[in-house]
């Protein structure tokens, strides 16, 4: 049990200090300090010394993992400013800057207020289009979006993160200072605070086009198109135009743009609404005073109006109840549900996906929602909440890290080569290894570091069809790829009839190859390597030595039967008996 967390809380509360104040004493961010009080981490010794000095207690009282701590009697209440400078660590320049700001707070507020008034007067004097400020700030509902296979969001530092299917590189996101992010079906588009667009996963031609659009104040993505609006009220559109979804390209006098999967909506300066593209067979959206937001799926279209009410259209399905939502700030829809986020941070579900409806009851303080066809995600400013099908691991986006999903392997093929079935494919950048699985016998699987794997042909039955699946395995910031599969039907080759002709016979000679370095590999990698060479378990004897490993992994100490860098043929290898020893991992 970690008693430090409780002691920190007890001390702080006793002296009536705020978490921010104690964080300033330590010279750290308040979120980091909260982690210490919540027991998620412990302070390092230097920090303990600072706090011990601050609370006038021996450092051992904080370092010992015991619940008791000395609390002095305080007869007067005090403010956070009391004695802080005495306790600041010597190198806490940032804490001193914050202290200076606090002490002269009123002057800063006054000066800031004057600046605001001046700016407002200037703003009134200028003739401006309606949407000049959107590119300068981030609205919460613009911070999260989802396609059917991936989720993207903007964290508190303006950095874009994503998770899920990355086959198209749509999650290769290296952007900051972003105010809006949206996804098409296989690409992501971002808008920065300077009014520039950029993209990941988009075809080069269209990516180049959107980068040339300037002073963009808003944009939206359909499945395959992007529609944008600049500060002068001009519309730009590029991408798929099969349904006429880009027919508004070049329009002027527009104040808002929206997109559905295969359509576009513009709101002109006079408030009139026009649609282009495919809207479940409709040619108009009816009369709306002011559309705030749209979302669509294969079967539903939801519309959020400026008064916080929600309307919807469906294709083919009839629903008994009209959604009854009030005070709504964001909407999202899947193929069988509508979600609405109210200003209190609660999510409401309509239509008949009861699983999602039940799960979101516990969501609180949500600031944005988005949906794929069969799942819903919410963002509370700290983490992504997900419910529904997590097929592409798209819920696993965190503040701590961004993972790029490796693309699936290409050019996967299987060829019978003598006594082996050779499975080969193109390499994937940043893959650490590949997992090969074949539904042969009781199941075959192998981890290989190379892009080739040889499987003993005797495992296969003549005339039977097998599925061969390959997955590129990532590590660190790279997540495993989606699996790529092919079908393979095995046919035994019949021996040719002996010929009486005088044609020469051909001897098949095996090509020898060099083994890797074996001693020093981790036990896991060593066994994976042998498996990839086709060496069976019956050829291996593993022995744990008495030596304790230095690290957390068992390391190969010696190998007999084969040796480092030895040149062998595959036939020779399969006849060897191999014994290897490895060190012992402590506490294993």
């Amino acid at each position, binding site marked *: 049990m*970690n*008693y*430090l967390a409780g002691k920190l809380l007890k001390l702080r509360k006793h002296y009536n200090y705020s978490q921010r104040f104690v964080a300033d004493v330590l010279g*750290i961010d308040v979120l*980091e300090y909260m982690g210490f009080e919540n027991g998620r*981490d*412990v*302070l*390092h*010794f*230097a920090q*303990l*010394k600072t706090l011990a000095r601050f609370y006038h207690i021996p*450092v*051992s009282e*904080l*370092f*010992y*993992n015991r619940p008791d701590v000395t609390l002095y009697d305080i007869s007067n209440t005090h403010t956070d400013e009391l004695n802080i400078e005495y306790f600041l660590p010597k*190198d806490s320049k940032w804490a001193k800057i914050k202290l200076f700001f606090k002490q002269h707070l009123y002057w800063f507020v006054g000066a800031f207020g004057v600046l605001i008034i001046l700016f407002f007067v200037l703003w009134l004097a200028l003739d401006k289009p309606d949407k000049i400020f959107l590119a300068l700030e981030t609205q919460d509902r613009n911070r999260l979006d989802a396609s059917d296979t991936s989720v993207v969001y903007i964290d508190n530092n303006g950095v874009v993160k994503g998770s899920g299917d990355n086959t198209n590189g749509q999650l290769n996101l290296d952007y900051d200072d972003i105010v809006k992010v949206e996804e098409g079906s296989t690409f992501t588009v971002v808008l920065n605070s300077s009014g520039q667009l950029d993209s990941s996963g988009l075809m080069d031609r269209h990516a180049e086009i959107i980068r040339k659009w300037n002073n963009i104040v808003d944009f939206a993505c359909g499945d395959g198109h992007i529609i944008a609006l600049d500060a002068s009220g001009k519309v730009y559109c590029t991408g798929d135009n099969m349904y006429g979804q880009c027919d508004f390209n070049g329009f002027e006098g527009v104040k808002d743009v929206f997109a559905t999967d295969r359509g576009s909506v513009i709101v002109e300066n006079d408030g009139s609404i026009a649609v282009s593209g495919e809207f479940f067979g409709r040619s108009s959206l009816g009369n709306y005073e002011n559309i705030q937001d749209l979302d669509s799926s294969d079967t539903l279209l939801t519309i959020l109006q400026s008064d916080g009410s929600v309307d919807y259209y469906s294709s083919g399905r009839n629903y008994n109840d009209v959604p009854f939502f009030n005070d709504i700030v964001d909407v999202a829809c899947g193929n069988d549900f509508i979600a609405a986020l109210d200003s209190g941070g609660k999510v409401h579900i309509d239509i008949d996906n009861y699983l999602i409806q039940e799960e979101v009851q516990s969501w609180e303080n949500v600031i944005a929602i988005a949906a794929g066809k069969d799942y819903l995600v919410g963002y509370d400013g700290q983490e992504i909440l997900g419910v529904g099908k997590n097929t592409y691991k798209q819920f696993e986006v965190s503040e701590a890290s961004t993972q790029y999903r490796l693309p699936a392997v290409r050019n996967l093929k299987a060829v019978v080569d003598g006594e082996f079935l050779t499975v080969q494919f193109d390499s994937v950048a940043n893959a650490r290894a590949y997992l090969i699985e074949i539904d042969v016998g009781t199941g075959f699987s192998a981890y290989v570091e190379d892009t080739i794997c040889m499987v003993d042909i005797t495992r296969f039955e003549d005339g039977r069809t097998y599925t061969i699946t390959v997955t590129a395995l990532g590590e660190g910031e790279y997540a495993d790829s989606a699996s790529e599969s092919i079908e393979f039907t095995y046919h035994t080759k019949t021996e040719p009839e002996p010929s009486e002709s005088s044609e020469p016979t051909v001897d098949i000679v095996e090509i020898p190859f060099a083994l890797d370095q074996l001693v020093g590999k981790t036990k896991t990698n060593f066994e994976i390597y042998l498996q990839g060479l086709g060496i069976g378990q019956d050829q291996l004897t593993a022995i744990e030595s008495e030596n304790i490993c230095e*690290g*957390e992994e068992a390391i190969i100490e010696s190998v007999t039967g084969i040796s480092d860098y030895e040149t062998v043929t595959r036939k020779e290898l399969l006849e060897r008996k191999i014994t290897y020893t490895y060190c012992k991992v*402590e*506490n294993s």
Partner: protein
Amino acid sequence: MILNKGKIWHIQNDNTAYSDEELITMIKSGKLKADTRITNRDLKKWIRIKDSIYQFYLPKL
């Protein structure tokens, strides 16, 4: 966050001094056990890792 880079920690029966970061790494890797005694000049006596807040870093079983 900058850790104290100074070599302040002593481990019983070990003549080497270690920094905070090095000590924590050894605890996390299992090189130091829960009963290992450590100290520095501010603590003034030996204390077992399991009796200190650094038990937080001991490998979980």
